[in-house]
């Protein structure tokens, strides 16, 4: 399967009163058809900005593309006009958001909101569109869809609203679905339902998913590949197994260590990461994780590490993984 989306050296900044905030600082990745890629990181690390820039959803100004390309099916999204974007948004790329309470229009019946999306992108009559809306609600397992399309969002529970959001996103059978913290606002039992639904839909329709989340449990559940992001940069990327079994970057290791596991002894203390992420008004010259890292070296402060490949699918940015660093640490043991 070919590359559906390819992001090359993307940098996005915000121009503010206090200066430029470098939210995303040169990231490259790709998404294949039908796969799920998870983007993980703490709040403010730039994961949502990355996703929104793929949809051109950032308000410009203050945001602007500083550098890079976003190739979707070979065409550069950065260069597209608003009109051209409208044909892609909701049609070829769709998005679902964290908060299902605020992303639906409270004054419009559910059915009308879905029909609106269908009519925008497909040449169907109103009746056909309505039929299609019912089909979509069936797809996402909303019970009694004929009755439900005549109800308003407040008559739906949180989980049901997120199902409606997914139905809305899937109306045009998009190639790519961007899910920005889709289950963060939901309870665990409902979260399990929604994740299951997303997997089912992906199996049925072959949609590629970019999943943005900070919950490593959710990542382990549904993603094929994982990208770990910190302070606007990628720290590590690999298949889900590689990242969880063999993390190469100290930040990934710390992140995995800071969540309590169900099989862990209660007398152990959690590995907290001391300090806070750096200020992106003046991003650090070297590795952004430098001042919170236990294994930091002098070089980390001033020089950004180079990309080191561990396998074809697994790379990290850390000086510890540099061949020279290995030689030095072996030397020091003698």
């Amino acid at each position, binding site marked *: 399967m070919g590359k559906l989306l390819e992001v090359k050296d993307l940098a996005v900044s915000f121009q503010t009163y206090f200066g430029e905030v470098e939210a995303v600082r040169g990231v490259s990745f790709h998404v294949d058809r039908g796969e799920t890629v998870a983007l993980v990181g*703490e709040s403010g690390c730039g994961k949502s900005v990355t996703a929104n820039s793929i949809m051109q959803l950032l308000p410009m100004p203050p945001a602007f593309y500083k550098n890079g390309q976003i190739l979707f099916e070979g065409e550069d999204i950065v260069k597209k006009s608003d009109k051209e974007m409208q044909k892609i948004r909701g049609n070829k790329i769709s998005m679902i958001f964290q908060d299902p309470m605020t992303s639906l229009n409270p004054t419009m019946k559910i059915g009308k909101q879905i029909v609106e999306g269908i009519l925008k992108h497909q040449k169907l009559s109103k009746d056909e569109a309505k039929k299609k809306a019912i089909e979509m609600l069936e797809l996402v397992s909303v019970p009694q869809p004929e009755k439900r399309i005549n109800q308003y969002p407040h008559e739906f529970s*949180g989980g049901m609203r997120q199902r409606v959001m997914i139905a809305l996103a899937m109306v045009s059978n998009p190639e790519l679905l961007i899910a920005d913290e889709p289950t963060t606002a939901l*309870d665990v039992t409902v979260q399990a339902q929604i994740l299951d639904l997303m997997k089912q839909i992906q199996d049925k329709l072959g949609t590629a998913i970019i999943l943005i989340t900070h919950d490593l*449990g959710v990542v*382990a559940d549904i993603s094929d590949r994982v990208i770990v992001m910190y302070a606007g940069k990628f720290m590590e990327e690999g298949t889900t197994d590689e990242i969880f079994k063999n993390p190469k970057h100290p930040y990934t290791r710390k992140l995995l260590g800071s969540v309590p*596991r169900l099989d862990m002894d209660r007398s152990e203390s959690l590995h907290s*990461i001391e300090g806070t992420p750096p200020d992106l008004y003046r991003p650090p010259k070297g590795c952004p994780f430098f001042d919170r890292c236990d294994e930091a070296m002098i070089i980390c402060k001033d020089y950004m590490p180079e990309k080191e490949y561990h396998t074809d699918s697994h790379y990290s940015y850390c000086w510890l993984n540099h061949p020279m660093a290995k030689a030095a640490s072996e030397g020091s043991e003698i």
Partner: protein
Amino acid sequence: MAEPLISVRNVKKYFDVGKGKTLKAVDGISFDIYPGETFGLVGESGCGKSTVGRTIIRLYEPTDGETIFNGKNIYKLSRHEMQEVRRDFQMIFQDPYASLNPRMPVIDIIGEPLDIHKAYKNHKERYSRVIELLELVGLSEEHAQRFPHEFSGGQRQRIGIARALALNPKFIVCDEPISALDVSIQAQVVNLLKKLQKDFGLTYLFIAHDLSMVRYISDRVGVMYLGHMMELATSEELYNNPIHPYTQALLSAIPIPDPEIQRNRHRIMLEGDVPSPIDPEDNCRFVDRCRYATERCRKEIPEYREVKKNHFVACHKADEILKG
């Protein structure tokens, strides 16, 4: 076991929602909290766990029931007596952004409980107490004159903790103290809470929906569903041998950060959502989503009883499930 620090007996809290309807947020809950332990309370949103936390320290007036602290039912105390008792109860809130007054410098936020209870002789003593508290939670004297907006979420939660500690309380209700924080910061705050508990012999009621975190921090855990306590046991027992069908489903829904386990585990999928707590019927609250439900579950509220030593369950089928 030692004498309980707090005994909650059949506490009910109903809210009138108009048109003659009642929202039964907490509907007859009993449990004990022992000195020095962390009691975890879990459940999905709307199950009444926060209402329990607030009712047992009498931030809400209960509809019925009693909470015994130091041999006295605190709901019977006068305003004046209650104020004395309140020194021993404190609360840490979920939202570190909304629970600190944005117009007050940190020194006054932490000093306010001291002012109210007149816990110092002169200003020097007040100042040194506030600095002492700041240092306890990992902040320093230089932070005293700053305002809340100058701090990150994790630091704000530390200020909230310092304020809760100001009067040397015995019992602290932590209402989702970490759910607004990033994972790396969550671990910092949890480690701090654990350390303070060891140093000062504090007792916590830890309310959360993050089940793996609750297991990690709590000695005993209660599971709530729609205003009822469904199951209560030590945290090892509850997580290893859950009896109530709801607890079983809840535990199997936790995503585990390990792809191999995640792929191979069997999940109990719950259908539907939590029903409305407004005028619920007199049946097992979980009946519509339960895979073991029978006619009896629709007619009677199951009794909350001890099925194993120190393991309480409210389920008609508990004995059958226990036998396997």
